[in-house]
């Protein structure tokens, strides 16, 4: 089974029913699967902070949410993470493609990669970095932890992690 399919199954196991996505080449596989998966409502959004607003609404409406996005947009979401997700104590797994890490072909992506962990640390967001395929084993536990903690939790998935899949 592919990493992407494995991740979707872990989401369903953790009762996630609402996922919003922003596009990334590294995430195209999971977004494609998600669109076909009838167990989860997929609502693509146009901007990452908008997506987090949708997720906050879904959570309050009784559906566990998840947002899938690229690390380059973390800056766009800082106010929303702090004044909506953290302030109202809303659990939100943030599955992030960690562009600009080892194996990156686009130079500009490296510019946000060097700030990614620093920004998440500054925001006190629990952060996990998936670099090896074996890190996938932790995904189920991280999702479970997110809804217990009622916090945003970041899962950074880099090119090496995804290269072993598709």
């Amino acid at each position, binding site marked *: 089974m592919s990493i992407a399919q494995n991740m979707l199954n872990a989401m369903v196991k953790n009762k996630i029913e*609402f996922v919003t996505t922003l596009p990334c080449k590294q995430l195209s596989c999971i977004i494609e699967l998600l669109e076909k998966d009838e167990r989860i409502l997929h*609502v693509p959004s146009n901007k990452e902070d908008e997506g987090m607003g*949708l997720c906050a*609404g879904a959570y*309050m*409406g*009784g559906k566990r949410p998840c947002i899938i996005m690229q690390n380059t947009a973390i800056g766009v979401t800082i106010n929303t993470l*702090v004044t909506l997700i953290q*302030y109202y104590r809303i659990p939100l797994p943030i599955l992030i493609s960690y562009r600009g890490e080892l194996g990156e072909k686009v130079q500009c992506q490296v510019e946000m990669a060097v700030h990614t962990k620093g920004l998440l640390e500054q925001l006190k967001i629990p952060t996990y970095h998936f670099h090896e395929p074996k890190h996938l084993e932790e995904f189920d536990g991280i999702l479970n932890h997110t809804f217990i903690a009622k916090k945003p939790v970041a899962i950074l998935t880099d090119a090496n992690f995804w290269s072993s899949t598709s």
Partner: protein
Amino acid sequence: MIRSDILKTIIPVISDKLVVSNIGLPSQELHMLDDQPTNFYMLGTMGLASSIGLGLALSQKETIIAIDGDGSVLTNLGTLPTIANNVANNFILLIIDNGSYGSTGDQPTYASGKTSLAKVAEACGCDNVFECKASETREILEKAIESKKMTIIVSKCQSGNIPVPVIDIDPAVIRYRFMEEIKARN
């Protein structure tokens, strides 16, 4: 009429409905005029009332009314295509369009100039878009609720604010009591 006048006229209609209200004075006015556990007050995060409202509408059965402003919608214009393409017939977006950023000193927005938010919403693919005078808001809102169709109302009113206290309810409490209401109704 100014925004608080519209709120006064629609309170009999929305008082027992699930409402997401926009950051700043709109939430503070609603809180002062008719605080209810069915109101979700945004204390921060400008622009996301419509997104939170759509997420709620897509996740449960009850009617959701998001009360937004022209400035906030302009901040998050990407919300309109998302609303248009993910139809939730239990969702009403009420944009109180006073042509200004009311909470920050009434600076004019582009909605007071050449930009029509109703036309933008239609161009984004939204159906059931109604622009109305402030005095017509209650009647159109009532019809929208009865229609059980996703509706966007742009209510044009004057710029202006009334003195209101800040909301001193903990955000986790606002969220908790709102969710308890949703659970009880679904």
